[in-house]
């Protein structure tokens, strides 16, 4: 523990970059430095930080600005694992655990779900819990885009939640369970594509797989830039939100791809939004654990979009779409949904 804490040069960059600090202030939230560095000197007191620890949205911004390159978010997640106990889980987190036990999804499944057609395609599409049960339009748009791009794909007949929410709650036992199940269900694929940057990141870091995010597949493999676009759509000013797990863990190149794809669409003008890479509050299990924090961050995101005079926020992440939409004010749509509606 000590060597980690001793590498901190106490510059406060992480505290300044932390989106939750701007919302909560340092009186009610310790910030990345307090949680990851200072508290690691007193591991026996981690329990007292329970409330604080679960306010982190796991956006990785602190680790990115850290001059000493400390893996701050990873340290916070490790602390969560160390204090995890099912009976002490926050209300929303307890629901996630119950849903996993019952349905193998992190959320209550919808009554009608998109159907997986049997196929022997080698491209596996993993929609994730949100795109299947809350925003099926993402599932449909992705399927439609892949069809337009002549990429044969299949959805596994059975799958479990990737486990990213469990990682954020700190439950390593269930995490191991869903990983083993999924690796069995995924048998015989050549390429894996995911809608949710959270799933993408988790498959890489926890499973050791090499998935692509939808945008990477569309840009690098399907060649979406060559697909014909529908003409004369109404003019629209779009602010591109940069989901944390996409921009920071998968990589900035995906955001560049997304921007390039959008700019080619007739009638679409990208506007620059202040703090486009600031977390919308949708990550880290904060929506379930501290919905007030998540909502305040979503509102800040909408305010940025309003100041940029955007008509629309496009977010390439199901979680972000869901959370920013809760704030209202500016319409928020998923990237694939927006793109599919504008391609022939």
């Amino acid at each position, binding site marked *: 523990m000590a060597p980690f804490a001793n590498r901190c040069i106490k510059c406060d960059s992480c505290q300044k970059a932390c989106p939750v600090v701007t919302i909560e*202030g340092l009186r009610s939230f310790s910030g990345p430095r307090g949680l990851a560095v200072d508290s690691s000197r007193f591991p026996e007191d981690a329990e007292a930080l329970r409330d604080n620890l679960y306010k982190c949205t796991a956006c990785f911004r602190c680790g*990115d*600005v850290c*001059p*000493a390159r400390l893996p701050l978010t990873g340290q916070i997640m490790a602390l969560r694992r160390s204090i995890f106990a099912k009976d002490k889980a926050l209300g929303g987190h307890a629901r996630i655990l119950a849903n996993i036990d019952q349905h193998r999804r992190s959320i209550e499944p919808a009554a009608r779900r998109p159907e997986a057609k049997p196929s022997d395609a080698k491209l596996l599409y993993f929609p994730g819990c949100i795109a299947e049960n809350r925003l099926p339009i993402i599932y449909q748009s992705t399927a439609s885009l892949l069809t337009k791009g002549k990429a044969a794909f299949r959805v596994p007949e059975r799958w479990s939640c990737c486990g990213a929410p469990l990682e954020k709650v700190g439950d390593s036992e269930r995490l191991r369970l869903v990983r083993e199940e999924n690796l069995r269900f995924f048998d015989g694929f050549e390429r894996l594509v995911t809608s949710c940057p959270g799933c993408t990141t988790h498959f*890489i870091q926890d499973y050791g797989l090499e998935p692509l995010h939808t945008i990477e597949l569309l840009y690098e493999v399907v060649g979406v830039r060559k697909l014909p676009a529908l003409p004369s759509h109404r003019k629209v000013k779009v602010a591109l939100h940069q989901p944390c797990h996409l921009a*920071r863990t998968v990589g*900035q*190149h995906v955001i560049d791809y997304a921007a390039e794809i959008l700019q080619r669409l007739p009638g679409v003008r990208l506007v620059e939004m202040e703090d486009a890479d600031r977390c919308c509050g949708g990550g880290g299990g904060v929506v379930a654990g501290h919905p007030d924090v998540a909502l305040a961050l979503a509102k800040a995101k909408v305010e940025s979009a309003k100041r940029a005079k955007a008509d629309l926020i496009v977010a390439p992440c199901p979680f972000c779409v869901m959370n920013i939409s809760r704030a209202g004010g500016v319409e928020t749509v998923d990237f694939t949904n927006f793109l599919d509606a504008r391609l022939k």
Partner: protein
Amino acid sequence: MLRELPPIKVDALVIGHGASGLMAASALASQNNNVLVVGKGATATSMSTGCISYIRKDILRQERGAIDLEALARSVHPFNDIMERGSLALEEVLLQVSSFFQRSLSDQGLEMTDDAFHFFDMLTNAGTMYSCSIAPSFTASGRLDRLREGSLALLGIEGHRDLDPRLVAAMCAGHVDGVRVRPYWRKLDCMGHGGMTATEAAARFKNGGTQELIKTISDLEEDSVAIPPLFGLQSVHKGMSELCSESEKNVFELVTPMSLPGLRLQDAMERSAVGHGCHLMKNHLVTRLEVKRERAVSALIETPTRRQAVSFNSLILATGDLVGGGLALAGREVVDPFSTFKVGWFGKTEPLPGQTRYDAAMRQVVEAGYLVTHEMRLMTKEGRPFENAFGAGSTLASFSFPTGVGLGGELLTAWIAAEYAKEGS
């Protein structure tokens, strides 16, 4: 685990996105080069005062107000050679670099005043003196020679950590002659509860605090008012000029490190680089460099999950000093994290009079850095200069001692590096 992205090719790769990296990148891109900037972590620029000085303390003792170019050249090792055998005249380079810098920032809404050949004194938020050559106009309006024979109010805002007026008043009592200084604490409704960082305060202030502050300032009897930094890059000029014109007073920011001024400079330089056509990849780490004889050929860029090879015609290394992570420590020795270039230092190994052995060892560590020729070319371990790899900024030897020498040398070396890198690409 790491997925390979298709390799890319650029004219110039700049590693490091602080003042020198962005300066070199902008200079190259403004001449139609295809430039990629890769950086990771908070830069020292973003923690700086946001002001530029080309000077060290020993140069200040020269004729007051003007900079002694020869003393400047003597102070930092690569400059020595520039004066002696380089084809560039230091004076001309200073002129070019500062006018390019000021023009670029002004396009991004950050007006910087005065020139690289003079310096002036200002007050910091710790009450100490700060000398620099180029500063944002709303900071420079607080230069001490303009305040003489006047009265100055130090306005602290409750809950804002950046300005404690009592501390500044007590500290500056000795050295600010002819200025009547008075501290005030005031509470603003828009700030809510106290105990916040400057960025938090700026976020709260954005929601309509200017009118309240104007009223507070107008009620003070002094003709100059110093405030903590309250505005981000987007709103700073509008905000500060509103405060001045509405209250009819000279309102300025104190020089404040580790706060908004540094972040504003970083922000403006990033925007300017992108505006000149650079491609900026933040949050990426260069993990490997491939070198053939005296040519750097390609580099590997990594995120936590992706990896991409970049080949380039020229390379500029502006990775910062030991604290910033541009250099590495192996035992007591400073080493090159890429294990490619020559690292060294220029001081004496024996302790100077009055120094302990520990002081000397410490100084050696802090002063060490990449060695370059007068054309900023990095060297192989054997001391042969590279054809296309250049060093710039505080990663160079003798740049980080004493600390806090201002960003002038960073800009200057970056400009020279870019000047020679152009020829290669």
